[in-house]
């Protein structure tokens, strides 16, 4: 005879906002999205099927983003890979009134001053695309291959800091992943922990 033990299971669920409850994972199909860019044009991810796409979460006032832009590191990467046919999309998921969310005039002024070179700067003020891709920091990088598969998610490089002097010492993951993928080699790193300011949803 089995004696039934009284099991008192008190479930305490501390559940915070599950906005990033399930983001697209590595080796999964990158979900399509449609956003307006800084010039007022509508841009869809699906337009770039058959190309490598880099998604770069951005906030020009974040000290980590400044590290990569004031050193021209990010612009150089954008140019380097644009010449190889990679589509670079900067995405700003800052909500209205929060850091990084600029008026179109101010945004274009910043882009001119920094001489940025993305294919497009996309506006995501509702944060919908940021949450779809699980973007947590600025910068935060996603790389999608020509088959529409997410092949990398995480940091731009391997030295988390705000110090420009660390850029040349660091291993740049964007370059490492794209060089391997575009030359049909195994991708050496697929997911790293991104570093930066929190995305200002």
């Amino acid at each position: 005879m089995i004696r039934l033990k009284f099991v008192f299971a008190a479930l305490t669920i501390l559940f915070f906002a599950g906005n990033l409850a399930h983001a697209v994972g590595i080796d999964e199909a990158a979900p399509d999205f449609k956003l307006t860019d800084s010039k007022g044009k509508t841009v869809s991810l699906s337009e770039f099927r058959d190309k490598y796409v880099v998604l770069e979460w951005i906030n020009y006032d974040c000290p980590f983003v400044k590290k990569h832009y004031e050193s021209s590191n990010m612009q150089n990467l954008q140019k380097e890979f644009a010449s190889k046919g990679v589509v670079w999309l900067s995405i700003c998921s800052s909500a209205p009134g929060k850091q990084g969310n600029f008026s179109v005039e101010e945004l274009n002024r910043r882009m001119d001053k920094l001489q940025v070179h993305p294919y497009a700067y996309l506006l995501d003020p509702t944060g919908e695309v940021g949450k779809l891709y699980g973007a947590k920091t600025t910068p935060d990088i996603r790389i999608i291959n020509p088959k529409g598969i997410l092949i990398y998610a995480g940091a731009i490089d391997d030295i988390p800091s705000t110090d420009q002097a660390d850029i040349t010492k660091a291993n740049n993951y964007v370059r490492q992943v794209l060089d391997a993928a575009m030359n049909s080699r195994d991708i050496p790193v697929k997911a790293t922990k991104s570093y930066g300011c929190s995305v200002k949803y």
Partner: protein
Amino acid sequence: MMKKLIKNILPFVVSALMLSSSIKAGAGDIMSVRLLSDKKSLLPGDTITMGIEINMKNGWHTYWINPGDAGLPLKFEWGLPDGFIIGNITWPIPELITEDGIASLIYKGKVIIPVVVYSPVNFKGNKAALELNVKALVCKEKCIPSSGGAKLVLPINHKKSLSDPSITKRLKNLVYTLPASYPQGGVKASRDADKIRIEIPINELNGRNDKIEFYPYQEGIYNLAAGQETISHDEYAAIILKLDDLRTEDPQSVSGVLVNRSGWKNIGYRKAMDIKINLTK
């Protein structure tokens, strides 16, 4: 008479001046740093327990050793005399904050971080200047890279060491919130799909109502914003953690700080325990 008075008082005045801990504030005075020492003067070979006291303006925070989804951990840059060595740093329990699905493990307001410093037995000088520069990311609605420095000059007495009872007491009072090592026990950890379960046997708890939390040292593994489910059972309590969809690796062990707000029986009711437990198959 006056000469005798001055001769008696002067050493104390000089000692007091040498003990001064200067404060240099960073980034618009948001953060300032002080060095505390449980010794007023050193006998070469002494072990000093120091406290790195970080003060931040109201509403600002900085980060724990695992900062969470964003931010940067504190960094310490020491300037020490020859032969002095930094030992263990003990990180106080952080606070978890979550906003829009992004979790951070932080310190806000004031935090004192104890650190052990070893002085060399063959130190010949008559004073030791200990300098520290703290590099931090301090945040409110925006983040600012910040630094703050402090310097402590301790006189050397080649005959005996002298404690500072008030600092010794202050540092001792922190002990209940500082992690202690987990002694041999029955805590187990296991994985089921995208969840990690940490189970603590009832005989290591005060009762079924103990409030338990886990703060992982491992970065990029857990979905901290998803929160922690806790289960209370006749024979155990358990914490369930969710793995991050974009985790950098599949963990083989669980390491971090297990906190029981009622205190852990097996470590004298200290509230925090450092654990590293391999996942059972």
